[in-house]
């Protein structure tokens, strides 16, 4: 069995789309509490890896162990309940709803959905709503205190950076053990990215045992925040190690960084 410090273990993970092999016998381990950078050229299988781990696409072959339990063919719902949440490369917030509603979606599994409680026991429901709003405010405040005061405003009124923040907070509402961040810096300025990453580090500091896998194209971000990196190419692991080790690897420089 795997060593206890490994939270997520993937063995020979393979995902094919017709003739295209998006993940090809991928072996990787994610250690408890680390911030792992997942890098690689476009189409190297990073997002597919997230989709397979979160159960959106079941793997064609291979196994996934999360905290020792097999998750390879579980539904997205079960995987979420086990403690894995994610953000999406292209924002998937519900724009018709309020910021609070979006965050409540993230807290779904902790909320009481029994029909008689929701329809008849309005006082208990209001208490739960207050507690959820307090938790949401607390999270948003880490990222941006002014945003936290706009909890009941429509999602559409929020700027791009705020939407990103809400999306990350939505994933954090369930107090996950493993957070998958799919290119959180996409479409943002360098300063915005720096601030967002600092906030994510702050979240990790406060949450204690939060493990994060970060897909990111911005190498300065990877260099600054990750403990360890894994480089993918053609759905395979090219190499792994600290950013310094990875970036000096000759194969990586050839395949990805475009350097001779």
């Amino acid at each position: 069995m795997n060593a206890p410090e490994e939270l997520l273990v993937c063995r020979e993970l393979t995902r094919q789309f017709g003739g295209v092999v998006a993940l090809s016998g991928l072996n990787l381990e994610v250690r408890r509490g680390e911030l792992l950078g997942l890098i690689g050229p476009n189409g190297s299988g990073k997002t597919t890896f997230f989709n397979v781990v979160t159960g959106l696409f079941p793997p064609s072959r291979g196994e996934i162990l999360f905290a020792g339990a097999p998750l390879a063919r579980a539904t997205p719902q079960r995987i979420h309940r086990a403690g894995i949440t994610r953000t999406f490369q292209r924002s998937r917030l519900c724009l018709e709803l309020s910021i609070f509603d979006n965050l409540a979606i993230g807290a779904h599994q902790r909320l009481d959905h029994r029909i008689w409680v929701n329809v008849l026991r309005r006082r208990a429901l209001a208490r739960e709503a207050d507690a959820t709003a307090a938790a949401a405010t607390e999270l948003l405040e880490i990222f941006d205190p002014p945003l936290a005061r706009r909890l009941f405003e429509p999602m559409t009124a929020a700027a791009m950076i705020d939407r990103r923040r809400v999306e990350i907070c939505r994933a954090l509402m369930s107090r996950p053990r493993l957070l998958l961040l799919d290119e959180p810096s996409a479409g943002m300025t360098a300063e915005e990215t720096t601030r967002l990453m600092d906030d994510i580090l702050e979240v990790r500091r406060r949450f204690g045992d939060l493990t994060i896998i970060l897909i990111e194209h911005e190498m300065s971000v990877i260099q600054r925040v990750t403990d360890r990196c894994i480089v993918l190419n053609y759905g395979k692991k090219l190499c792994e190690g600290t950013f310094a080790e990875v970036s000096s690897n000759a194969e990586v420089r050839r395949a990805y960084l475009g350097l001779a």
Partner: protein
Amino acid sequence: MRSPGAGRRVLSAAVLAALAALLLYGFLAAESETTVGLILLGAVVAVAVGLRTGVLDRLLRAAGTPTMLGSLGLAALALVGVFHDDPFVLLLMARALLVLVACLGLHVQLADAGVPNFAGAAFFGVGGYTAAVLGRGALPHPLVLLASGAVAAAVGSLLLLPLLRTRGHYAALITIAFGLLFRTFLEVNDALGGPQGLKLGGLRILGWSFNDDRQLLGVDVSGYAFYCLAAVGLALAAVWLVRRVERSWIGIALDAVRLDETAAACFGISIGRWKIAAFTLGNAIIGVAGGLSAMMVGFIAPNNFTFQESLVLVSVLLLGGLGNLAGLAVAALIVVWLPEKLQPIQEYRYLLFSVLVVLVLVLRPTGLVRRTLRRPFGSVAA
């Protein structure tokens, strides 16, 4: 959030409800088509002015939904009182209310959970036939109405398996197929009267027959007035239930399922469970409305529950604005009353609705009234 005093709240609601009642009274009492046309024109202008100047919005906000609902209920009672001996107008009012209730069921399905249902009339019919069969027995009629809802929900569960495996147009097609099957089933089923249909005895609660005209305080009151009151009660109850469901975690879960199934699944929301819940609740509401409607009309036949009637119900939703209950009520009134009061268009009513729906979808895709943000339901906001 500012919270206006009780006085201002009641006054605002009373003004709006009185204006609405006046408008509806004028419309219902009008004899000639010219008068009806003028009243409609006046209403459109008044609403447009109210919207432009923001007066309507301010009054609505000052009134608050519970007070507004109560005032509208009182306005409906007043209208029933005014037309207490006019069976035609009373029947018209009750029908609009029951169509509204049925559309509330569709609203839970389509506007909340995103599950299309083009067999609304069929589920309305299931409720009606249940009332026809059970109403003859010893079961008290309030329970018969509940049974109408339960049977409609149970019959709807036959569709769950295919509905959960499809979405969008394909799910819509399944409900269309069911609607057609339902009608054919009725036509060949002699136990349910075949194409001739069934007669019903009318609603009776604690020995009080709703079918009989009565003298109350020396005033002749048509039996339909009592059906109207029952319909007002049912409509208010349905609005109350649907609003509570929407302003709760359930409403948020349904929205998540409708807006993005993939994201919802990644946050642990069981897509199937919520679609089942919404479809079942919606059909139950439609079934109760169908049961009361059948008892009121006293006769049901397969021809009352055609695909066309289902389309009319869906068009009420699109017309009013998917996701908005106020718009739904206005649209139900337009769809049920307009053809009755403007006899020349009676023949062309399906044509008229189709054109109206197309126009609304082209010119104002959100419908007459836009979907609004869910109001917070925490104790601070409540």
